[in-house]
């Protein structure tokens, strides 16, 4: 039930209960980290101010702040077939699944693969204490904002991935929210890609029901010198879900990070993706595809911090908007003093399928170095009438022509998906996400 004002009481009650349950079971550093996370949460509060709140100017999180959610102290049972039907692309992958924030071993597979540690975070805290302590909360710090704070305090479990050798098998982290009540979950992932190693990581957020629930997700990825990470973040939750996500990436020397943020799900969504170039010789390629209809609201804020020289970043997001949906794109490239030979480009292109759909696109560059190559662009437009006529003049009916043009628009992003089964699935899913195409999609 929604309240008339922001409410923190339930979070406080749940957090106290968690403190009692966890007493003596978690190491002191983690207890301290969680406590400071909750302190920050209560101190920052949800960013609901409608004035002077630049980072949240276009996204009103009052429905989240005033919502009443059930913290799942345990999890629902989910059948493997229900999962397979929803995510049919991960055959042969290593999979770690969390249901309502709790590790679900019966839905996980391949966790004993050699050369890589894929484990629930709760287990890694015990089995890899030094590694987890060294990295958890270091990139997504509790003082970033209230969402990271409360996630740090309250996450039940998460995924820990340490790629110690090059692993050909992709790792799939699945965060399911069940259809019990109106859960609030705090998915958490910590990914450590060791020197000179390669990792393909897929994160999928899905809902099993169609009720309102709230996901507050945090993923931390650190690339040690020479590491490569290909990251796919798939937001597939139901259109009544609230989702706030933080992806924070730390790049060492000579690293390559690629990200595709694919977003068709969620009713009210905000995803912050932050990349820090902490050394030289690295590249980051961040792509995104958001597909909205009905009254969905999807906001992406991408920040690339060129703190050091000789790094290259490419940021390319595309949006397809229908109905009375709304999308927000904010991209900021910081080029710090001394970060010479920075090469950065960012672009956001939007296809508006209805007159009621709306996009606010704000790419920005903040450059404090001299010897750099930077650019940005943003466009929003309707389906080109010329293209539609051209296809019709060949006998293709307008609906099929639109379907083609929408898939064509998305393909520029999806062609970059290196996992063939995933690429095919996303291609089909993109038009399925738009109700206007009905049964013709896919």
């Amino acid at each position, binding site marked *: 039930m929604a309240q008339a004002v922001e409410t923190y009481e339930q979070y406080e009650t749940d957090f106290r209960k968690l403190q009692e349950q966890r007493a003596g079971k978690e190491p002191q550093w983690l207890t301290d980290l969680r406590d400071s996370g909750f302190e920050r949460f209560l101190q920052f509060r949800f960013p609901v101010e409608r004035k002077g709140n630049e980072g949240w100017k276009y996204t009103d999180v009052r429905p989240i702040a005033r919502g009443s959610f059930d913290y799942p102290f345990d999890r629902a049972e989910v059948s493997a077939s229900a999962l397979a039907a929803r995510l049919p692309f991960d055959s042969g992958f290593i999979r770690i699944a969390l249901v309502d924030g709790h590790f679900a071993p019966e839905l996980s597979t391949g966790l004993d693969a050699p050369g890589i540690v894929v484990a629930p975070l709760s287990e890694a805290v015990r089995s890899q204490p030094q590694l987890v302590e060294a990295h958890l909360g270091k990139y997504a710090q509790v003082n970033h904002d209230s969402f990271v704070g409360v996630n740090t305090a309250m996450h039940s479990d998460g995924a820990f991935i340490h790629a110690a050798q090059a692993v050909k098998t992709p790792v799939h982290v699945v965060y399911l929210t069940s259809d019990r009540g109106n859960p609030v979950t705090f998915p958490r992932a910590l990914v450590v890609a060791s020197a000179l190693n390669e990792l393909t990581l897929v994160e999928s957020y899905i809902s099993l029901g169609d009720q309102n629930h709230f996901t507050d997700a945090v993923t931390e990825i650190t690339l040690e010198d020479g590491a490569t990470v290909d990251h796919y973040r798939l937001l597939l939750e139901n259109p009544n879900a609230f989702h706030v996500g933080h992806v924070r990436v730390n790049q060492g020397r000579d690293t390559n990070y690629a990200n595709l943020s694919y977003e068709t799900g969620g009713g009210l969504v905000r995803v912050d993706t932050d990349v820090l170039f902490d050394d030289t010789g690295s590249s980051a390629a961040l792509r995104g595809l958001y597909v909205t209809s009905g009254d969905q609201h999807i906001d992406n804020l991408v920040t690339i911090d060129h703190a050091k020289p000789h790094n290259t970043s490419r940021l390319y997001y595309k949006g397809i908007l229908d109905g009375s949906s709304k999308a927000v794109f904010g991209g900021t490239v910081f080029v710090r003093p001394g970060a010479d030979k920075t090469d950065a480009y960012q672009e956001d292109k939007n296809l508006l399928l209805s007159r009621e759909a709306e996009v606010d696109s704000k790419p920005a560059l903040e450059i404090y170095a001299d010897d750099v190559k930077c650019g940005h662009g943003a466009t929003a437009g309707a389906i*080109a*009438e*010329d*293209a539609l*006529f*051209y*296809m*019709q*003049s*060949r*006998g*293709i*009916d*307008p609906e*099929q*022509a639109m379907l*083609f*043009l929408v*898939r*064509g*628009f*998305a*393909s*520029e992003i999806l062609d970059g998906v290196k996992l063939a089964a995933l690429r095919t699935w996303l291609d089909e899913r993109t038009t399925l996400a738009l109700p206007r195409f009905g049964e013709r999609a896919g």
Partner: protein
Amino acid sequence: MPVLSNAEGPPMLEVRGLHVSVVDTEILKGVDLSLNAGEVHAIMGPNGSGKSTLANIIAGRPGYIVTAGEVLYEGKNLLSLTPDARARAGVFLALQYPVELPGIRNREFLRTALDALRESRGEEAVPIRDFNKMLDAKAKELDLDPDMMKRNVNEGFSGGEKKRNEILQLSVLDPKLALLDETDSGLDIDALKVVAKGVNAFRGPGKAILLVTHYQRILDYITPDLVHVLIDGRIVRSGGRELALELESRGYDWLREEAPAEASA
């Protein structure tokens, strides 16, 4: 006036007293034209005379307003049909400026179009393997690299490649009425010959071609049955192949004085 029709029934295309405007400007000011199956008619005229408008309005391109007159295709009102319904009925327009379709591969585009046409005729879809074989063979005939079939429609194609790709579509989709809107413009002589070969291969009984051109050069390779001269939205003269040659040597000015009332196809 040469009379070439020996067809039975209505002409394939009949344009009667057609007036067409774009926004508030009248472009076609009363065009009459009759094209029978088996015939090739050339529409010639200076820039801005309304040649492309005529081709586009027959194909159903949006942006034009018919203020008077009618267009009959096989005796039926064509103007009430959507562009895709016209295509399924057998009308094809080779565009003056073929449109780029980002993210849509040539092969998939053409196969979908052919399937749509066949489905409307109650025919089964062509198996993918057979289609690909046929497409590659036809591409080769038009001097197009089969690799281009895997590329996005017209994206990154040269001007000449785009025009040849239009003729490839003509060949694959095999319509009844082909409207060629300045398909020859911008082609060098070798490309022109290739395009003409493609058009001539299409030509035959049961097919009609309306060839819109600015230059008589293409008529050296595609012999028209009739040449119509369109000036300021009206057909001012119609004649045989020799009319095109006369236009080449004398230009259009001598025809501008002709009274529109005297001209009819």
